[in-house]
């Protein structure tokens, strides 16, 4: 497997502003790579710079040091005005907040990317409808976001990115704000969708169980300045049953190992 996304010695400090000094390094010397078709999870305590890391990869924020290489080509820039969010649709980003467009129905939110990319044809519509059905949103196509439950909004946000099939998808604790049962269901949905297409996913979470349940490999972030503190291959075979993940052989030992590394 070749690395589709590579992060080399990434560093980040926030620039000086209004007479303040530049911030201390929040990320320093952070390196990892993701293979095509891999589901990589990154665990880190709150404030470890997880969102900042993903923002830099998605190019909604600049890096202060280091390089990001997508498909063999460096894409890093230090100039905020030269940022290309999503790097020409090659990086999808499912953020912590669902950021659904409140004036668009479920279906129109899912179709948004195809529409603005001028790729909205019958195939695209069929794909959107299939995804809507796959995550149990059938019958809610004409509902507006404010009429949906938290879990349904998360599902809509998830398939809104899946529908246009970006090569790499970043996920920033997308299931953090829902209750435990819904979260398990959403994790199962995500795994099912992933098994169908085997997208390259970088999934950030503070929840060790989630990192084990979803990932092929889990990276542990250190406290600030954050770097990769440890790497764990998840030895649990797929397909996995997320609901009974605790009972699967290998879970307990992996959990203990990761917990020891998370400060």
């Amino acid at each position, binding site marked *: 497997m070749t690395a589709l996304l590579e992060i080399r010695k990434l560093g980040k400090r926030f620039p000086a502003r209004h007479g303040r000094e530049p911030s201390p390094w929040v990320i320093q010397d952070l390196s990892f790579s993701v293979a095509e078709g891999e589901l990589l999870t990154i665990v880190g305590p709150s404030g470890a710079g997880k969102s900042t890391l993903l923002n830099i990869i998605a190019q909604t924020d600049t890096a202060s040091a280091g390089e990001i290489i997508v498909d063999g080509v460096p894409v890093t820039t230090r100039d905020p005005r030269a940022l290309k969010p999503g790097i020409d649709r090659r990086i999808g980003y499912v953020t912590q907040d669902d950021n659904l467009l409140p004036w668009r129905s479920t279906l129109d939110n899912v179709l*948004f990317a195809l529409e603005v990319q001028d790729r909205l044809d019958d195939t695209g519509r069929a794909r959107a409808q299939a995804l809507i059905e796959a995550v149990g949103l059938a019958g809610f196509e004409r509902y507006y976001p404010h009429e949906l439950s938290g879990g349904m909004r998360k599902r809509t946000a998830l398939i809104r990115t899946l529908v246009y099939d970006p090569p790499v998808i970043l996920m920033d604790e997308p299931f953090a704000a829902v209750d435990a049962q819904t979260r398990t269901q959403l994790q199962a949905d995500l795994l099912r969708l992933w098994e169908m297409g085997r997208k390259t996913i970088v999934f950030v979470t503070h929840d060790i169980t989630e990192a084990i349940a979803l990932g092929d490999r889990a990276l542990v972030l250190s406290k600030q300045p954050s770097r990769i503190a440890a790497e764990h291959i998840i030895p649990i075979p797929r397909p996995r049953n997320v609901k009974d993940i605790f009972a699967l052989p290998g879970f307990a030992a992996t959990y203990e190992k990761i917990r020891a590394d998370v400060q």
Partner: protein
Amino acid sequence: MTDTPAPAVGAIRWRRLLDRVLVVAVILALWQLASWHVGIYWVSSPWGVTARFAEMTASGELIRHAGYTLAEAAAGTLIAGVPAVLLPLILRRHPVLVAILDPFMIGGYGAPKLAFAPLFIVWFGIGMESKIALVVSVVFFIVYFATLNGVRALDPKLVQTAQILGASERRIARHIVLPAAVPSIFAGFRIAVPYGIAAAVIAELISANRGLGFLVQTGATNFDTTGVFAAIAMATLLVQAAIWLMNALERALLRWRPPVDAWMETGP
């Protein structure tokens, strides 16, 4: 914390209607009393105005004059409204230009536009053009600043999301900035349109040979208070109708918003 259950929406609406009728009845009664005491010559009377209003409506005179005023106000609102909405959308990516324009826009917003009416008449003649020009000058700045506020209040995360999903700047303006600004745009028009109609009437008052302002002017010259009130009543009706139309349009465009409780709905 309230323990009393909220009354049904229908009941609230009826109660509100009843209260409004009551307010109207009190005002009319006071007016009638005043006309008996002060004299019908000075303040006319509700009955006299109603009769004149009906008579002038039946003869088509009131409708014809109201039509001119309405046409001026509508044309002015359109001519001012389109650029007032588009400019902030286009300038969103050019904060320097907005900053350069700002003092001029504030000046235009603050200047007493009605004082320009005589000048507009000199420039554009006593026909509809001078009235439309005054309406434009009144409506433009109000709608511009309302839209600008809406654009500034936009959630940058929605823009970022759209960029990541591959939307061009033009698409973002159309699909993110414009819909997000719609409530502010309507807030602007709701304030601007009554002023616009008033501006048309006032421009007619100064110099015109038709329109509701012309009727007011003629009535005042002939000491016909009843005629003045009938024309003002018609102008008020125009404003009410315009607001009703805008509210209906806004409701249709903002179906996506969570419904508001009936008792929180306020006019205009």
